[in-house]
């Protein structure tokens, strides 16, 4: 197969609220290669999670995708009939959520609720489904899986529950898994275990991952490419090492520089002034301009994406000039 696995173009998702329309995702474009791990970074409200849900068509009404396209292996997902979209979910693209305590159904046995995900796509016997569930649970590092199929979620630790969620996503061998902050609710020691296993799983099964996170360090140890979002837009995209060592957009750079790891202990951190804008009252032009030290009159106009080789950013005054 040629071409990228997933191509997102001009994706826009809106939520009408009483106070006005919130455009949570604004003309977002990116692609994911088969088997690749793409990091999607941003703060809360940047639209990173909504982007993930938009790809799967899981926007709760009255929110809806108002523009753009999402193509998986050439097949357009936006505007696909509900039936066809449902058939894609879990089978072609799966998703893992942030809080495993909230995602698993507390009153269903682990084996039974995972089997529902298999039966959603295939007609197989209950025994065959159970066997497959046990197999995948073993794959994600749950010891003695066959005996724990009848356990309820509350009998598992947080890390184990997240493994169950990951196993559920893997059940139908999807080509792409969208991971929405899957380790944020976990302790560092458990996070390290899950990260290690996810990386191995993605490599061994050839599954591509979109890893949504607010934590640059985590993404830097996992992804090969990175997208940075701010106020609903992709403001920077590129190979991870290049972006992290020489960020182009002032926001990406500010984010990196504000990390304690980048400063001398006890000295003030570099800080981005101000707070992210309300999505109901976005400034005209570049949404970051009010907090940006480099902003001038030009920033009142929306910057067009600048493309330089593998890298892309939306800024009138980037830190690095495009080099080819």
């Amino acid at each position: 197969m040629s071409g990228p696995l997933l191509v997102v173009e001009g994706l826009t998702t809106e939520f009408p609220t009483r106070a006005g329309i919130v455009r949570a995702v604004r003309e977002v474009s990116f692609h994911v290669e088969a088997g690749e791990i793409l990091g999607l970074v941003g703060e809360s409200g940047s639209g990173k999670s909504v982007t993930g849900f938009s790809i799967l068509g899981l926007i709760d009404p009255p929110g809806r995708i108002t523009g753009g396209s999402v193509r998986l292996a050439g097949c357009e997902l936006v505007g696909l009939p509900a039936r066809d979209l449902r058939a894609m979910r879990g089978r072609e693209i799966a998703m893992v959520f942030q809080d495993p305590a909230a995602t698993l159904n507390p009153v269903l046995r682990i084996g039974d609720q995972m089997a529902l995900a298999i039966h959603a796509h295939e007609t197989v016997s209950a025994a065959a489904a159970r066997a497959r569930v046990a197999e995948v649970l073993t794959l994600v590092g749950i010891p003695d899986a066959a005996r724990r199929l009848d356990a309820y979620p509350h009998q598992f630790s947080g890390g184990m529950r997240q493994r169950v969620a990951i196993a559920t996503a893997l059940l139908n061998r999807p080509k792409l898994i969208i991971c929405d902050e899957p380790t944020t609710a976990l302790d560092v020691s458990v996070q390290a275990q899950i990260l290690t296993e996810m990386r191995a799983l993605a490599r061994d099964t050839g599954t591509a991952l979109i890893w949504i996170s607010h934590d640059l360090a985590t993404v830097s140890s996992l992804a090969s490419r990175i997208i940075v979002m701010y106020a609903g837009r992709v403001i920077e995209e590129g190979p991870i090492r290049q972006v992290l060592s020489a960020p182009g957009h002032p926001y990406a750079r500010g984010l990196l520089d504000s990390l304690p790891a980048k400063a001398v202990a006890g000295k003030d951190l570099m800080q981005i002034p101000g707070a992210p804008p309300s999505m109901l009252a976005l400034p005209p032009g570049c949404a970051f301009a009010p907090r940006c030290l480099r902003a001038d009159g030009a920033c009142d106009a929306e910057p067009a994406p600048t493309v330089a080789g593998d890298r892309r950013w939306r800024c009138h005054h980037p830190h690095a000039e495009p080099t080819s």
Partner: protein
Amino acid sequence: MSPAIVEVRNVSRRFAPTPSIGERIAGLFGAYVENRTVHAVDRVSLDIAPGEVLGLVGESGCGKSTLGRVIAGIHPPSDGEAFIHGEPVMGGSRRRVKTTTRVQMIFQDPFGSLDPRFRIGATIAEGPIAHGLIRRAEARAEVARWLSAVGLPADAADRFPHQFSGGQRQRIAIARALAMQPDILVCDEPVASLDVSIQAQIINLFLKLRRELNLTMLFISHDLGVIRHICDRVAIMYLGRIVELGRTEDIYTRPAHHYTRALLDSVPKLVTTGDDLVSFRPISGELPSPLAPPPGCHFHLRCPAADARCRSEAPDLRDLADGRRAACHHPLIDDRT
């Protein structure tokens, strides 16, 4: 070193739901009654010197928040005592209540820690007025002073919490604590629920307040990077016990306890160059349930250096070289020479 402001002496805090009458009767008939006592904090002692920032680090369920709440006078200790300037934090003997205003607390969730029905000014002035630190007539000026100390305009006093962002609310919570003019501030994960770019602002605020007011703080966090940045000394907790205590830089560069090293290793670092993505190493095994911690050293099930002694005998926190203390039979640095 000047005498400590805070002395924690052998403090334990247990949470034990009392068994119901039915359970007791079932127990009489020989039915198995599970022990549900959680030793959230287990015989912990530590000191905090004036002007010092002590970091308290550990994973969820290690008891760091409970210890902070004992020091702040929210939970009375089950055993032992926490002292501020030599006075117990909790007064009274049978029904223990906090009487001192010398210790104040800042909470993790800036959305839950402010009364939604109180204007900001009322929230900040309430404590000082109740304790006669200021007169009602002085309240406005006092509130304005503390608001400006935390970087907020004076007119914020007339507004309600819902009109502020998370970072601003955390500033208000800090102003409220400072207005009581405490000797020590207990900060329980004060930046954990804030966005990265806002985190840096609040950390800088703490640094500034520390410089200007010579604040003493107990800073509780699970974020090793934040702790390293603002703490002078660090205490590492695991399943209710302090396993290591020492100067920040020493601990981060040369951990003495195997858990400390494993914890430091498991944090992903920011990798900006090279192709080697392995910036972290997970700790093997699961965190044991605090309901049934393993005997001996609580970490022995996951520790590469564990032997028979670790499985049976709980190590005490003892002095090692360079003023370091660790609770380990086989520490990674030399014993005191």
